[in-house]
């Protein structure tokens, strides 16, 4: 069965990956520079922006996280969308 995800899926996914990557980098930086105010501010800005973007992604393509870290429609959506290594 070929199931094609829309181009929009890949676009939105990449947007989220880019935003989350900045957060990974800032996290590791802050682990060794805990007093850098500019970096702390940027971290909080991106953390809030990523919440909006992931909510938008989940609205369209189902939950990104399990264990109640997101919402589900019926039937249980977790297993509905393809897995990262499949797309």
């Amino acid at each position, binding site marked *: 069965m070929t199931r094609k995800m829309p181009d929009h899926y*890949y676009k939105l*996914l*990449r947007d*989220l*990956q880019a935003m*989350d*990557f900045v957060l*990974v*980098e800032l*996290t*590791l*930086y802050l*682990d*060794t520079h805990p007093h850098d105010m500019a970096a702390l501010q940027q971290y909080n800005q991106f953390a809030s922006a990523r919440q909006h973007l992931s909510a938008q992604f989940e609205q369209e393509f189902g*939950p*990104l*996280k*399990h*264990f109640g*870290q997101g919402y589900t429609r019926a039937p249980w959506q977790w297993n509905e*969308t393809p*897995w*990262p*290594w499949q797309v």
Partner: protein
Amino acid sequence: MWIYEKKLQYPVKVSKCDPYMAKLLLEQYGGADGELAAALRYLNQRYTIPDKVIGLLTDIGTEEFAHLEMIATMVYKLTKDATPEQLRAAGLGDHYANHDKALFYQNASGVPWTATYIQAKGDPIADLYEDIAAEEKARATYQWLIDMTDDVDLQDGLKFLREREVIHSLRFREAVEILKESHGVKKVF
């Protein structure tokens, strides 16, 4: 605890049907300097390292699992549609005999992963220098893997992973500096 997020850290793309490359990539899956070893090394050391660097070990250890998933994705895509004949030609006949196409924690030569790949000395400097060395060795392995393929899309994912090791090494070097600075008891003469 850990929460899984249903996305890769970086979009992995593989454009050339090359099961032999899957065999080589196993070096970073279940090899001595691979991503599994990295994740387990840092997440194990963190229990006994000084508090100031526990966060760093936790975060880098967690990121390594995301790298492991990227390598798994590459191996999966490279072998998924290969015939047993193609796998045999790629030097994966012995793998097929044991595992079919299942991934397995072993290196490029088929040696299974072992806990002796990672160290935990309990001495913060010994452990952090081990981590710095591990990152440089992982970086070097990525270089040799990049050399072994002409698939620019696969190279692209490997270059991302290589650069991450450069940054991890930097953070561990900084952690050493932080420990140098933490004079708990000032000696007065």
